Structures are given as structure tokens and as C-alpha cells.
């Protein structure tokens, strides 16, 4: 397994200060079977061209920095391995549907604004003091939301979502999964407040139920199910509003 082989990595390069448009460059990278695509990119930066630019940090698929299109599929480059593509050439590009800032770095400010807009924090149903100790959560209550806490904000689901590609204002799968996480938490009492956004023009009705977001999610959060549960909730809320002036999102 230690034998060194050479793999061709084709990188979509873009330097905004000197390039009119993105273009491909091919690098011949020596690799061993334990090397990730991220390590391939690092090899290029260290040895061939220090200007190659990409985000990375933890190397263990938890910080969410290193997503890119690998042969056209959104993946975390730290947990994708060169051996699985050899002897073919491998292509890496910036995540789809986001504006490219430089090489593999995309503009995430839109995503961050969405994340901030969903009120991603506990708005307590019943406030508690430290002296009262922790809230009690039964295993059933815990299991209702825990899956949706696993999102690492890598935005692979946005690169996979055809609707986000068409409408960049769509709140999108990742942020919607996080919204759902707080709505489902027994400590939180603000589901009704968040409903306005769910049912808005940027909300769940943009989703065309392709489900590719859940397929590419490296943490099995299943954002598609979060979006679809909220579609149903929003519809229910809409009809209940006719019956009760208080609405029905509880």
C-alpha cells in the first residue's frame, strides 16, 4: 500500500485579479493509498504552486471547511481518497451554486446570513435558573431532535440542491435542518416564531423534493426530511390559521 504512484489532479483555477474566467490546470501528484484529496491539494500548494487556494482545517470531517466538487460531486476533500480515482484523472472545483472568490474558495456570506436568520438558539418555553439545574429530556424527546444537531455547515447540500441553484434566496436544506433542530427541542418554545420564515417566499415551498441534499450529506443529517416535515407543518399551519386566529404551529 505504500508504493508511490502518480495521479493527475485537474484543478479549476481562478484568480480574480488576473483571470477573466476560471480555467483548468493539471498537476501530476505522487501519492500513497492513505492520501486524501485534501492532501493532494496540499501537495500541490507546498511543492508546485503556493498560490493554490482552498479552505481546510481539521482533516477529520468535523470542521466543515474543505467541501469541493470532486468529479462533479460535492464532497469533503479530507475524507475522499485519491486511491479511489486512480488511475483516472481526478477533477476538483469550487462548490457549485456559490460565487467563486478564488480557486476553490467560494463566497459563503449568503449561507451565513440564512443561518443567522432562522433564530438558531433556544428561546426557552420555560426559562430556568442555573440553581434549578438542567432541563430533563426523556430519550424520546432527545431522539426527536438529535439527528438534526449533526450539521457541520459544510454546505455540500447547497451545492447539491437544484432549487438553490435557481434561486439563491432559498433558505436551503442546511439552514432548514437547523431550524427544525430547534423547533423539535423540548427546551424551545419558538416554533411559531420561526414558522413565518418556513412558509415565506424563501421557505420550504422552493423545495422540489429531489433529495440529493440528503444523499451528499456527510453527517447523515437528512436535511430533505427536515424540509419536508416543515412543508407539511407549514401547510397545516396555513389551514389552521383559518380556524383559529392564533394559528396552529404548536
Amino acid at each position, binding site marked *: 500500500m505504500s508504493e508511490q504512484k502518480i495521479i493527475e489532479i485537474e484543478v479549476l483555477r481562478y*484568480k480574480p485579479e488576473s483571470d477573466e474566467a476560471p480555467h483548468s490546470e493539471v498537476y501530476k501528484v505522487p501519492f500513497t493509498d492513505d492520501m486524501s484529496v485534501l492532501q493532494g491539494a496540499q501537495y500541490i500548494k507546498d511543492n508546485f504552486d*503556493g498560490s493554490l487556494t482552498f479552505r481546510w482545517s481539521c*482533516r477529520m470531517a*468535523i470542521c466543515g*471547511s474543505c467541501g469541493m466538487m470532486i468529479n462533479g460531486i460535492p464532497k469533503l476533500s479530507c475524507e475522499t481518497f485519491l486511491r479511489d480515482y486512480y488511475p483516472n484523472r481526478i477533477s476538483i472545483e469550487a462548490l457549485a451554486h456559490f460565487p467563486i472568490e478564488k480557486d476553490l474558495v467560494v463566497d459563503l456570506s449568503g449561507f451565513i446570513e440564512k443561518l443567522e436568520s432562522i*433564530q438558531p438558539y433556544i428561546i426557552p418555553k420555560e426559562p430556568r435558573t442555573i440553581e434549578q439545574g438542567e432541563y430533563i429530556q426523556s430519550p424520546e424527546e*432527545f431522539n426527536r431532535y438529535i439527528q438534526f444537531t449533526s450539521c457541520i455547515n459544510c454546505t455540500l447540500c447547497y451545492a447539491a440542491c437544484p432549487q438553490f441553484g435557481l434561486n439563491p434566496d432559498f433558505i436551503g436544506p442546511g439552514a432548514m435542518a437547523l431550524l427544525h433542530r430547534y423547533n423539535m427541542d423540548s427546551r424551545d418554545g419558538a416554533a411559531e416564531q420561526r414558522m413565518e420564515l418556513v412558509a415565506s417566499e424563501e421557505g420550504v415551498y422552493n423545495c422540489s423534493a429531489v433529495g440529493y441534499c440528503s444523499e451528499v450529506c456527510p453527517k447523515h443529517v437528512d436535511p430533505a426530511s427536515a424540509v419536508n416535515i416543515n412543508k407539511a407543518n407549514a401547510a397545516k399551519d396555513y389551514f389552521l390559521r383559518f380556524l383559529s386566529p392564533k394559528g396552529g404551529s404548536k
Partner: protein
Amino acid sequence: MEIFKADVVIVGGGGAGLRAAIAVAESDPKLKIALVSKVYPMRSHTVAAEGGAAGVKKPTDSLDYHFHDTVGGGDWLCEQDVVEYFVKQAPVELTQLEHWGCPWSRTEDGHVNVRAFGGMKIERTWFAADKSGFHILHTLFQTSIKYPSIKRFDEYFCVDLLEEDGRVQGVVAIEMGTGKFTMIEGKSVIIATGGAGRVFRESTLGGIVTGDGMALAFRHGVALRDMEFVQYHPTCMPITGLLFTEACRGEGGYLVNKDGYRYLQDYGLGPLQDKPKNKYMELGPRDRLSQAFWYEKQKGRTIEHPVLGSVVHLDLRHLGEAYLRERLPLIYEMAETFMGIDPAKDMIPVRAGVHYTMGGIKVDGKCAASLPGLYAIGECSSVGIHGANRLGSNSLTEIVVFGKLAGDEAAKHAKSVAPGNSASLLKQAQAIEERIMALKTKTGGTERISVIRKEMAQSMEDGCGIFRTESTMQATCDKLAELRERFKNINLDDKSSVWNTDWLMAVELDYQLDVAQTMAHSAINRRESRGAHQRLDGPNEAYKQRDDVNFLKHSEAYYVPGGAPRIALGDVKITKSQPEVRAYGAAGEKADAERKASHV
């Protein structure tokens, strides 16, 4: 140059920085907070912490037990008054995180659960499966969004502190996406930039863990304390260094050598236990376990893997797939993805790797540094709770306990001082901009920064590893001096402004070389063995022993422009625990019993 006027500037958006920001916001919503981070906050390395956070929870536990475990675990180099504050505040802050939504793992009856951890007498580690740091960080980041007074500077890289009239008055940072400089004025500055372990080769750490804040404070005359104490974590993935949490052993995992023998029983941690027993065998402290790995290798009892090199085995098979998936889901996935191993069926090859910087920016018990207005928290700081060896799960608690405290203190300070002179601060900031720009625009150099970085990391591993001698440490000191010279001759490939990571990594390397020098020079000056600093030399091998007469002292490294750091010794605060023999396993239990008897 862009200018932003804040009351409190926080450098670093990990768990400590975020907790401090929230504390400032809650103490006075009128205070303007600038939170500067070179990555989006949820990318910070807090995210990678796995096992959990220590705080007394069970009725059978006590603050006193947590105190003694911590001080003994630190080989008596802790500031004991600070440890007393720490253990008292720990449950408060961990409960606060629960109120903010942190999904701590729970017992069947719905309370927060705790697990066993190395060197801890009673189970007191709060955990969120094996993604505790991830959940703490995301909880804090998301909660911070609630406070409009926190203005984030995401992907801004801090290059220097502003100092005038004998106090800190702000920072200068580069907006990474444009390369433009920003001056951020502040009456208080909190450094929360994390550790520096990437100066070593094989580490558990993310690429961002480059000691930036330590170097910033150091260059402004603040001491870096106890820098020779670098923690090797005993169970890391070979080559990449990725971490297999101590919780693997807390949940019942074994460490075995090439003969399938649980070798820790030979190193003062026995006798053998079937079930995890606190402070015995695999639940010994990290320094002892990493040292035992080194001895096994010397004895030829490690497994010599053709690709991975020398390893021992972490055996989790007896815990079964279902339990592993529930308690250690990240570990399970990492073993599968990165090593092609099913930990329910096969043993995991591991070895010791660099994990944590016990030392850091010297601060008092209120997180204040010697430069007025400057505070430091978390791994970049040395507030005094870890001593010569940190116990696992004390550091996640540290970031919230001292994040809160520093936030309160920095807020108070900001309200007590007048704003600075913006015009003269701007002049200073422009001079800083010129200096940092020169690194990029200079031509004619021949050195690649990646080459210098690799040589530094190799040299630190060779000279300042698990065991050290005068000659290996001297070789590292010499090498670092050589690299410092060669750094002047670097040449960058990237001369552009937008997202120039080539340039930023050069600034980081400059920081790293400073920090590496403080580690190597503090190490060679400490002529004894204590905690994570273990020597094999001295007259009649005298330095193999702890020497409380001469070295029950902190090391303090001071910046000397253009030269090696000056090392001084500082006093250790002892309140109620006098240094004793540091014992674990049956010997530790006997010592505990004797101490109790003598107190009656």
C-alpha cells in the same frame, strides 16, 4: 485603512472566544464587541474535541476530588487557588451550556450523563456522544447570534496588537477575502486563539492551530509560561495523527502490545482490571500512557507496521457494535473511513501524537496578562489549571469557565478606561501594515515556507518529543535559530491580494517559529522530569527525577528581539496540596488512603 471602534476586541472565535463574547454582551448590552477569527467560528478547533468536559455531577463526587485529581495530574505545577475556582464554576458553566441547547448525552431518566476519563477519581465528564467539542462550539456560536452587540469579523487574520500609554488598545487584522487591513480599536483585548501544536509533525490538530495569539502577546513583552509542557495523546491515528478519544478507554477499551498484552500493568498503573476502573490501567493520565508507549517501543514490543511504523493496538471489539455506535459514533466512522477498519471486529493501530499545549500566555486568576487591558483564555493561555500535564476533559470546561470570567473582567476594564488616541493608533497600524506587506512584496528570496515549516516540525519532534535529552534539545534550539535566519530569505509564490493564503501561512510560520523557540528553550532549561516533560539525562541521570527543590517553579519565556527567548522561573501557588509522589493504580489508591488517615 478601515477603522472599527469597539470596546472589547476578542481574537479567536472558538469556544473560549465565543463564551467571552456572550459574557461581555450579557454584562452590558451597550458595549461594542468585535469578534475576530481567521475562520468562520464553527470551524475553530474546539470542534474536534471529542471526549467531554469535566465538572462534578454525581452525589458521590466532590469539588475536592476534582481539585486533587487536577493538581496531582498536573504534577503539582498548578496554581491551586485558580484550580479551586475552576472546579467550583465547572458545573455552573456546563449547566449553562445545557440551557443554551447543548445536546449532552443523557441517562434513561433524562438527566445529563457523565463518563469516566483518565486520571479522574469519579466519573465526571459530561459528554455529547464523542462529538462534545463540536456540540459545545455550535451551541455557543448559534447562541452568540442572539446578541446584536457582537460584531463578527469572520475570516479576518490578526497580525498585531496596538499598544500605547502602557496598555493594549486594539488590534490590526487582514480581511482575508480582500487582503485589506483593518484597525480595530478596543479598550480591552481578549486573546482566545487556541494552541500551537502544529509546530510538531504528527499531531491531532487542525491546520489553524498555529499559536498566533501566543506569539502576539509574547512580542509585546508578555511571558509565555510553562511552554515545555506539550501533551502527547496516547491514542492517535498513525501518520495523520487524528485523534481517537480517551473516551474509547473510558468506555472500556484496552491498549495492547504486539503480544496482545495489556502492557500498562508494567508501568505503575496495575493491577489488571477487567472493567474500566478510575485511575487504573487505561484510565491513567495521558503523560504516563504516552511514556509507556515509548518504553514499549524501546523494548521491541510494539507492532512494526510496514506503512504505519511503530504502533500498539486499541482494542474496542468487546464493547460490541451497538454500544460503539451509540457512545463513539465519530470514532467508529473515522476508523472505517480513514483506516478501513471495523472497530467492532478489528483492533485499531494507534500511537502517541501531539495534542495540547499546557503552557501559554501568562495570566493571573482573573485571566489578565501583565499588559494592562490584555486577557487570555483557553489553550493559548496559562491561567494555571493544567500544570505539567492536563487531565483529559478539563480543557473544554476551561474554555467556558474562563471565557465567562474574562468576558466579565474585560467588560469592567473597558468601562473604566478612556478611549485611545485614534490618530496615533492609526499611525501605528499603518507601520504594521507596511511591515506585513513587505513579507509579501519582497523579491529575491529562495526559501519555500513549506520547507521551513516541515523542518521545524521534524526538529520539534526529534528534540522535544515524549523523552528529551540535553543534546537533542540543543540540536532543536540550534535548528530553530537556523530556520529563523532562513525565514528572512523566503519567497512567496502568490503576490496577489485576494485570499492570499501563501502570505498568511508565512505570517503563521513566523508566529510558529517564535512559539517553537519558547518550547525548546524552556525545555532545555528545566533540568528535571515532571508531567509531560521527561528527561533521560543529567549527572547520574538525575534529571530523570522530579526536583521540587529547584524546579517546583513555572518557566517563563520572554521575547528577545532577534534572539532566543530569555527564560526565567516563577513561583507556584500552593494552597492545600503539598507535592507528593504521583501514583496511580493500586499504589495511588494506597497513597490516597494514607493521606486520608493522616488527616484524621
